[in-house]
């Protein structure tokens, strides 16, 4: 995008006003012998990303760790314009827009955000965000329990993020509902036969796409299994991966949730982040959070208001759905600005680059002696798990000293995903071939 402030006609008009023919005449007072006769020796224009890397290097800053850590948050590029818009005072201090007459900007952002989330997820309706992916997942389980009142369990794939499971368990604990965990097959995908046996009394089946081990699930088969048992399908999707994969909605999901951090939000040591929540239209009255809608003012002009507030506690009291969106408004704005900046093709480009880089890294890492795929045969997007020759936590610790964050050890969670000798590696569009060489080097010497 070009940010040239003056058009040629602007320049002509200014020159005419001060009575000269060309900008060069402005420098006529400088003796000709002192003037530069050739273009300045500066390099060609760089992309924003390359500029930041180059200037940081010239400034002698310590380069950040080369990040192969994922496991829920991912090291994607955040364009500078995202932060610039976030810091505008009109948005920075925005509280819940209860007064539409003074909140049209905030309400329109929410509306645009909801529209983008519907397009990404393939669902009918999205709310104005939740705390994070984990709380969005828990709210989806609560929605399913509200729709299927006589069913008291939630079947969750073993490969749903352990934090999502822990938070869902906490939320459900107060309602007397429980989680039944469905195992994975050796290729890392959900064991649908085992899940099917658990689904008889379940309100929903919860799966993650790609799952926590990076493996791509067959969502259509998951939907068929859930619906055959009379349960809803809840999909926790990755909002970047979905640009390259079928959307949850097109595969038959009833509720789609996501951790929105990959959309223009820095990793920030784990937060604040953004929960995405979308559903089919028929569940709209069971949805938590705020929803902005289009309306008309008394002169017939298009405007935006909060809608369906009869779900919320100031009207529905103790029977209200959850209502926790206020402090995520700024992060929803970040995701909106990010998506508006990169556009549909840009997001596809990010997804494809991450996928290609990850497969190159997989090929290189699994050739190292002692490293092997944890889920052989499983298709993956931008993240994969490998068996390691020694405890992964030790490898990660050792690699940090060499400037590389080599991944996430899979035994560090409340529900350990595997034995200590397993490492989860994520590769985004930011990782270069040189970065992958450095990863291979630290893993080889570990």
């Amino acid at each position, binding site marked *: 995008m070009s940010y040239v402030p003056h058009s040629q006609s602007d320049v002509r008009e200014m020159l005419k006003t001060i009575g000269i023919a060309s900008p060069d005449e402005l420098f006529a007072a400088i003796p000709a012998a002192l003037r530069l006769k050739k273009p300045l020796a500066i390099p060609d224009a760089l992309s924003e990303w390359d500029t930041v890397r180059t200037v940081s290097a010239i400034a002698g800053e310590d380069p950040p760790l080369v990040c192969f850590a994922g496991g829920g948050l991912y090291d994607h590029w955040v364009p500078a314009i995202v932060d610039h818009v976030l810091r505008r005072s009109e948005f920075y201090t925005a509280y819940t827009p209860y007064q539409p007459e003074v909140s049209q900007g905030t309400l329109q952002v929410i509306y645009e955000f909801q529209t983008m989330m519907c397009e990404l997820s393939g669902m009918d309706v999205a709310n104005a965000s939740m705390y994070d992916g984990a709380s969005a997942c828990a709210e989806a389980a609560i929605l399913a329990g509200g729709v299927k009142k006589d069913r008291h369990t939630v079947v969750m794939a073993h490969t749903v993020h352990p934090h999502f499971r822990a938070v869902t368990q906490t939320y459900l604990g107060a309602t007397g509902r429980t989680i039944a965990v469905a195992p994975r097959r050796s290729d890392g995908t959900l064991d649908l036969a085992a899940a099917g046996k658990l689904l008889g009394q379940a309100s929903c089946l919860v799966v993650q796409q790609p799952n926590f081990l990076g493996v791509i699930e067959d969502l259509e088969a998951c939907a068929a299994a859930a619906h055959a048992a009379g349960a809803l399908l809840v999909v926790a999707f990755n909002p970047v991966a979905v640009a390259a994969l079928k959307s949850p909605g097109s595969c038959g999901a009833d509720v789609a949730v996501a951790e929105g951090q990959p959309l223009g939000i820095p990793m920030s040591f784990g937060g604040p982040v953004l929960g995405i929540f979308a559903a089919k239209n028929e569940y709209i009255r069971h949805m938590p959070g705020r929803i902005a809608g289009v309306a008309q003012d008394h002169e017939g002009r298009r405007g935006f208001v909060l809608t369906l507030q009869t779900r919320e506690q100031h009207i*529905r009291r103790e*029977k209200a759905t959850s209502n926790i969106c206020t402090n995520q408004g700024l992060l929803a704005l970040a995701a909106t600005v990010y998506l508006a900046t990169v556009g549909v093709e840009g997001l596809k480009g990010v997804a494809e680059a991450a996928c290609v880089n990850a497969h190159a890294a997989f090929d290189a890492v699994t050739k190292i002696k002692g490293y092997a795929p944890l889920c052989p045969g499983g298709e993956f997007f931008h993240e994969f798990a490998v068996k390691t020759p020694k405890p992964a936590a030790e490898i990660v610790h050792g690699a940090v000293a060499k400037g590389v964050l080599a991944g996430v050890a899979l035994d560090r969670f409340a529900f350990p995903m595997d034995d200590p000798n397993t490492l989860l590696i994520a590769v985004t569009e930011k990782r270069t071939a040189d970065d992958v060489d450095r990863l291979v080097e630290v893993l080889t010497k570990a």
Partner: protein
Amino acid sequence: MSKIPEDNVYTEEHEYLHETDQKGVVTIGITDYAQGELGDVVYVELPAVGAKFDKMEPFGTIEAVKAVSELFCPVAGEVVEVNIAIEGDPSVVNKDPYGAGWMIKLKVRKPAEMEELLGPAEYASHIGQ
């Protein structure tokens, strides 16, 4: 003046019960007074056929633009028919509460409970008419 048909019985929660041709089966809906107080009805959530309720247990919800109310089952029984049409067009609850705006048909479990409900005159006095 709200309409209060003579051939119904009523509850203090502004529901009516109308005996159908089928023995022991009553039609249940909200009264003309109730729809007027609620304003434009935008959504009605109804139970499934076969659902069983105790006396005064909520059987559904009714949502107007600025309020949501529970629908209470006036007597114990089992739902034998549901007016699905009002889920698609809730405005009939406003237009014709005693006719097309009915909500459920209920097989009454304890006929004696019918005796405890209000007659038309008692309901009229309840709403100050």
